């Protein structure tokens, strides 16, 4: 029985019985409640005129929030699947999302204005030609988010409210910038989605990119590529960010485990080594809407400290 083979076998069997050490999680979860921030209130506004639309359907989450910020929350009669804030609108019927939007379902709600994505040309055409509906499709993805707010306010006959909201947001951005200006600048990468073999990060030249200058951080994503820039993990390694913010969470506990497993694959990343990979379910940070800067401030407090 003292044959080396038996001893080796015994060692192997014994090692399989040993409990593996539980590795420390590589990611830090930012609670969803952190980003449950309000939009700016508009004081002393002109009243909503009589000719303003009375029944609204909006299928862009950021603009659903904008409509509410402009005072039209009680006139919303339909929303898209992802519009979930403020909480009161969750009871409204959903007309689908970008993949499943149905013109007939929208028309069935008898809206007098529909706010929708500019790219869905066939749905827009069906709404305007078959159902003779008014449709506004503002640009939302690029750096024209403020222009989108004005365009929507215009179509609601409350341009002055739109201008006031934009002014407030711009002031809010400047205030947050001033607040964190003295803190050390952080090189940061914001991951929007993790696809197979690719990561989608916030690229330069978009409204979302303004997150970095607002919270005194630099975007380490290479230039070009638009708001949703695709990057390989290898290219990511070259960027060496101090902080990684992973926003690809669906909101479940399993997503956090999955994020942990994913980032564990890159132990040499400075952010992973220093435990500075933050994960969060924060759709508000990818919506160029009226709560964007308030959410950015909440993020800055987490990363820089209060």
């Amino acid at each position: 029985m003292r044959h080396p083979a038996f001893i080796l076998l015994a060692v192997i069997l014994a090692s399989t019985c040993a409990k593996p050490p539980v590795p420390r999680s590589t990611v830090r979860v930012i609670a969803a409640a952190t980003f449950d921030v309000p939009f700016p209130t508009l004081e002393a506004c002109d009243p909503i005129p009589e000719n303003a639309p009375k029944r609204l359907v909006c299928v862009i989450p950021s603009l659903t929030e904008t409509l509410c910020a402009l005072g039209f929350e009680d006139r919303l009669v339909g929303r898209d699947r992802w519009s979930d804030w403020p909480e009161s609108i969750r009871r409204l019927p959903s007309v689908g999302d970008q993949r499943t939007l149905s013109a007939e379902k929208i028309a069935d709600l008898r809206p007098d204005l529909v706010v929708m994505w500019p790219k869905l040309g066939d749905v827009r055409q069906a709404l305007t030609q078959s159902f003779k509906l008014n449709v506004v499709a503002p640009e939302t993805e690029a750096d024209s988010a403020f222009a989108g707010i004005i365009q929507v306010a215009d179509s609601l006959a409350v341009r002055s409210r739109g201008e006031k909201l934009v002014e407030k947001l711009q002031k809010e951005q400047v205030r947050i910038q001033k607040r964190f200006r003295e803190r050390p600048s952080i090189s940061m990468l914001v991951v929007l989605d993790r696809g197979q073999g690719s990561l989608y990060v916030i690229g330069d030249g978009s409204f979302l990119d303004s997150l970095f200058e607002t919270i005194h951080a630099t975007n380490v994503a290479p230039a070009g590529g638009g708001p949703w820039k695709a990057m390989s993990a290898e290219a990511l390694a070259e960027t060496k960010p101090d902080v990684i913010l992973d926003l690809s969470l669906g909101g479940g506990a399993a997503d956090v485990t999955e994020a942990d497993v994913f980032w564990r694959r890159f132990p040499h990343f400075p952010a992973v080594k220093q435990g500075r990979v933050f994960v969060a379910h924060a759709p508000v940070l990818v919506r160029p809407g009226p709560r964007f800067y308030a959410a950015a401030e909440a993020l800055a407090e987490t990363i820089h400290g209060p």
Partner: protein
Amino acid sequence: MDHDGVTLRRAVRLTGIAVLIAVSALVCALAVGPTHVNLSEVLALNHQSLDYQKVVDYRLPRALAAAITGAALALGGVTFQVLVRNPLASPFVLGVSSGGSLGAALALSLGATFVGPWAFLGCLGAVVIVFLAGRRHGKLSSTSLLLAGVITNATLSAVITFINLVAAPSDRDRILRWLVGGLPESLDSSSLLLSAASVLVFLTHLLLRSRELNLMAVSDEMAARGCISVNRLRIEFFVTGSALTAAAVTLAGPIPFVGLVVPHLTRLAIGPDHRLTVPVAAFGGAAFVMLADMAAQSLWREPLPAGVLTAAIGGPLFLIMLRNLDRERAGLDG
């Protein structure tokens, strides 16, 4: 009564039944949708009523587009199954739909609002590649065509996957929706008329060539014995099948299984004579896609692309057909 007289009477009777099925499917597609419709409002011809707009301005063009797509795909299936003499051939086996999908994926990733023209150009490009690659010494060979189609399909699919990977996530959703195959929410009347006209022209052509289709389905020798230039016929059928597929793909994306299942079901029901198969498959395909789109629009809480339903129904249906065919063959052998 002579043999042709009997066939003509049978053709009229069977085509009549197929037309009746297609008209019933059209009525269903108009009456059932993602929202409730009060049909009395529609029958009252109240142009201002929302129900009238839903049925006449929205569902009717959609149902007609579904009918044209279904007919085109079924006829494409009939043509390609004869051309490559392979029962598993479908309009998509020769790479035409991959070309259309590539054009559409490219358009969507570049932010185009309407993808129809891009899809059509893609189909055209794939047809030219397969045609050039499928020729041997100036002649089209079934095997070369099939191989060229399979390889073109694989190559174009790889490019589509690449585009999908590098596209922005918001565009990926739209690309996926298109690749699954579904009718667009709105169609301009000119593209609808153009597609309808092409299907009608090629349906007539196939009806006139149904005797040749019968001969070619048996063998090249049989077709040659019938004093037919086999190469010329192959080119003719290749162009016909490709044009029909391109018309369907441009209109509604690559709706799967219609071109495979409908010709088989038709043959199972009425036999292999293409004088009957061609018209019946056309109306059968039209009914199949109209009903699939109607179900896809109304079954789930959010409307689905029709391609999801045709695949879900067509796949199992095809397996059952294969099983029955095997049993029949075993019975004959036994």
